[in-house]
């Protein structure tokens, strides 16, 4: 991970490496202990089942719920699908309206779109310019026929933390089921499902130093929440999600979440120090804007717009860094990030954004290198930018008649 021939990895929100301690725990479950956890008739099955249940308990411990409330899935995408479609269909007799937010992950937005396709109605809330959803607006969106609301805990692009505790209270009071996508939250913010009024919560292992392809859905038992299965078959996971359990993946997720619980507090302190160092490094420059609220935010994320520089050329200019761009100018869709647009960012700023996400193996030297590189490359690109030139000449770009194509 300190291999300098490769770019410095600052894209931990896309995925994380598997912690070597996790990988080590997983391997025996591929080779020696390969049994099917559903095999009830021999020791191969029993030991696999025990490993699965230990991992389930570890996942439950990180978020303070009962292990019986954890259902294994293939990742947060599947968890979101199961939660949203499963609950909406099961409770459809009560109403056919769902509420979500424009800045949700596609795994939520596209699932809600699918519900619309089959006859549900949906409200997509606008966040405030900070990225946070106003609780009064949220409450106002809930109707007598609303069955489900879905709001993510930590946003994947801008890292802001939504006030889900408050939304949960509102939903409970109004008799609306509440789903939270917590894929980007585990190991970054404390989650206490004993006190949160959340009915369904999605998790993913690979954002928290576990393997890809495994996740979980929390399904509350008191008061009991029921779902219509989306995957039919052998009736695994109490009928909610059929399919042979991937023991090694599950063991990996359990160990990753156990480490997250033990190390979260100290790790977050270190990461906050690195983020502050990065922030200080870029704030000295002209026309740099932080996207999303800085206070209600995980320390792992810094999303900034470098005005008058286009995101893709910026990424190309910073090929020594592995980062994400909010711009998706790939001609098929000349679309800047829908998340930044939802915050009300103008097109130039939305096109000029870079997401830096910091993680377990980021060092101070990495950050210092990144800051030096950013200064050099932004300077070069701005020298090349007609927009920067116009800005420097005092021209208001909003008054220019562009020849749109």
């Amino acid at each position: 991970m300190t291999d300098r021939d490769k770019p410095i990895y600052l894209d931990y929100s896309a995925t994380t490496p598997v912690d070597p301690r996790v990988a080590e725990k997983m391997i025996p479950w591929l080779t020696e202990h390969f049994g099917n956890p559903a095999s009830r008739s021999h020791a191969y099955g029993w030991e696999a089942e025990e490993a699965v249940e230990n991992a389930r308990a570890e996942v439950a411990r990180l978020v303070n719920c009962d292990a019986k409330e954890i259902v294994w899935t293939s990742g947060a995408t599947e968890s979101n699908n199961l939660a949203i479609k499963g609950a909406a269909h099961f409770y459809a007799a009560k109403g056919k309206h769902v509420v979500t937010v424009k800045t949700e992950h596609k795994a939520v937005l596209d699932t809600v779109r699918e519900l619309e396709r089959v006859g549900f109605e949906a409200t997509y809330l606008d966040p405030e310019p900070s990225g946070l959803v106003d609780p009064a607006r949220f409450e106002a969106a809930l109707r007598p026929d609303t069955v489900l609301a879905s709001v993510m805990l930590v946003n994947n692009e801008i890292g802001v933390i939504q006030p889900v505790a408050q939304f949960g209270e509102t939903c409970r009071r109004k008799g609306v089921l509440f789903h939270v996508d917590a894929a980007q939250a585990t190991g970054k913010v404390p989650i206490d499902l004993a006190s949160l009024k959340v009915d369904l919560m999605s998790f993913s292992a690979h954002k928290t130093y576990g393997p890809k392809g495994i996740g979980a859905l929390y399904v509350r038992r008191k008061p009991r929440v029921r779902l219509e299965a989306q995957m039919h078959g052998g009736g695994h996971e109490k009928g909610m999600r059929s399919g042979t359990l991937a023991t090694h993946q599950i063991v990996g997720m359990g160990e990753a979440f156990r480490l997250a619980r033990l190390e979260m507090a100290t790790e977050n302190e270190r990461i906050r120090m690195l983020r502050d160092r990065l922030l200080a490094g870029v704030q000295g420059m002209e026309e740099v804007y932080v996207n999303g609220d800085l206070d209600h935010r995980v320390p792992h994320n810094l999303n900034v717009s470098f005005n008058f520089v286009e995101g893709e050329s910026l990424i190309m200019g910073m090929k020594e860094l592995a980062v994400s761009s909010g711009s998706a100018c790939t001609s098929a869709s000349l679309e800047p990030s829908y998340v930044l647009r939802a915050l009300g960012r103008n097109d130039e700023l939305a096109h000029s954004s870079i997401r830096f996400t910091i993680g377990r193996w980021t060092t101070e030297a990495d950050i210092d290198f990144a800051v030096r590189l950013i200064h050099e490359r932004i300077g070069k690109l701005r020298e090349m930018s007609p927009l920067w030139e116009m800005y420097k000449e005092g021209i208001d770009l909003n008054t220019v008649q562009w020849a749109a194509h």
Partner: protein
Amino acid sequence: MAYSEKVIDHYEHPRNVGSFAKDEDGVATGMVGAPACGDVMKLQIKVGAGGVIEDAKFKTYGCGSAIASSSLVTEWVKGKTLDEAAGIRNTQIAEELALPPVKIHCSILAEDAIKAAIADYRKKYGEGEDAAKKAAD
């Protein structure tokens, strides 16, 4: 996005970046694209005696392919007459830079920038040889 070597070369060593002084004789400007689309190209040509493009400069806000396309056309238009320059096709640019299909519009933008600069020249200085002479005076 994997870029071709030629795109990377133009991106890392862009040719003819910059602007001419506003009042410089024989200079015309083409500005195409829009910030909302994620790309703006400014191409300037300096036309000398005989209607020949003597020099060209560009500034581009856009992806690497857009930067490379505009850098390339500044090289290509030099030494050409306005009519010859107007004949440069985006397909030639795309082929030279080995642009993938999703990047074709970057080369179209470069072609548009040449056309816009030529149109600006004709608007400023009138048509043809006389205009060129006038500009050279």
